[in-house]
């Protein structure tokens, strides 16, 4: 029995389907305990930036020393990913071709622009919104899939 349990733990592999269950529960936990936006790196960093801007433009105290809920969640997410990478001995610093670095830079700008202008977040629309039957999400998520199809066509043309 003990050996069986040890084998089970040793052979456990996080496939996306198993991870999806944990991530669904995690987003639900974030929804109830942290912030009704669900779980989003972009949104949380955006809120942090607007908090800094608010501190700079008003007479509020800048950096009160206590990280907010959103900041600790984002820090925790990076820390968890780092722990996973180091434990699996996957952690190393990767270089890249200049073209790849440039496309990463432009893609990063595009995704944040879409996020802050229109809330284009696959977690917020694809999971929280679709499950919560929000009309905007039922419009936004098919539009996101159209965007992915356009990107796939572009990749096929380039390749």
């Amino acid at each position, binding site marked *: 029995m003990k050996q069986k349990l040890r084998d089970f733990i040793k052979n456990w592999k996080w496939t996306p389907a198993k991870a999806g269950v944990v991530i669904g529960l995690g987003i639900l936990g974030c929804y109830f305990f942290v912030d009704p936006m669900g779980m989003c790196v972009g949104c949380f960093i955006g809120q942090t930036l607007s908090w800094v801007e608010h501190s700079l433009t008003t007479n509020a105290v800048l950096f009160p020393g206590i990280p907010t*809920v959103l900041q600790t969640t984002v820090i925790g997410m990076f820390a968890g990913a780092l722990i996973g990478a180091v434990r699996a001995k996957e952690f190393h610093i990767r270089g890249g071709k200049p073209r790849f670095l440039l496309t990463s830079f432009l893609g990063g700008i595009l995704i944040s622009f879409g996020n802050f202008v229109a809330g284009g977040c696959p977690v917020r629309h694809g999971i929280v919104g679709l499950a919560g039957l929000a009309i905007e999400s039922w419009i936004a998520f098919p539009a996101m899939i159209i965007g992915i199809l356009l990107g796939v066509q572009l990749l096929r043309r380039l390749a």
Partner: protein
Amino acid sequence: MDSKQIIGLAIGVVMGYVSQRSRFCIQGAFRDLFLFKNNYLFKGYLAALLTFALVWLFGYRHAA
């Protein structure tokens, strides 16, 4: 640090670890589905959506 911050940190660590180990990605799921006809990541998205929807429904009924 408030208890809320600790909960946020804990949820963040768990989700970061799990998504790093499994390569979970929603946009990547659709990219693999359309580009390579590969549903490996898409199962992860469906599992997350179903879990969220079911627990949401159950919790909503019992909270109301």
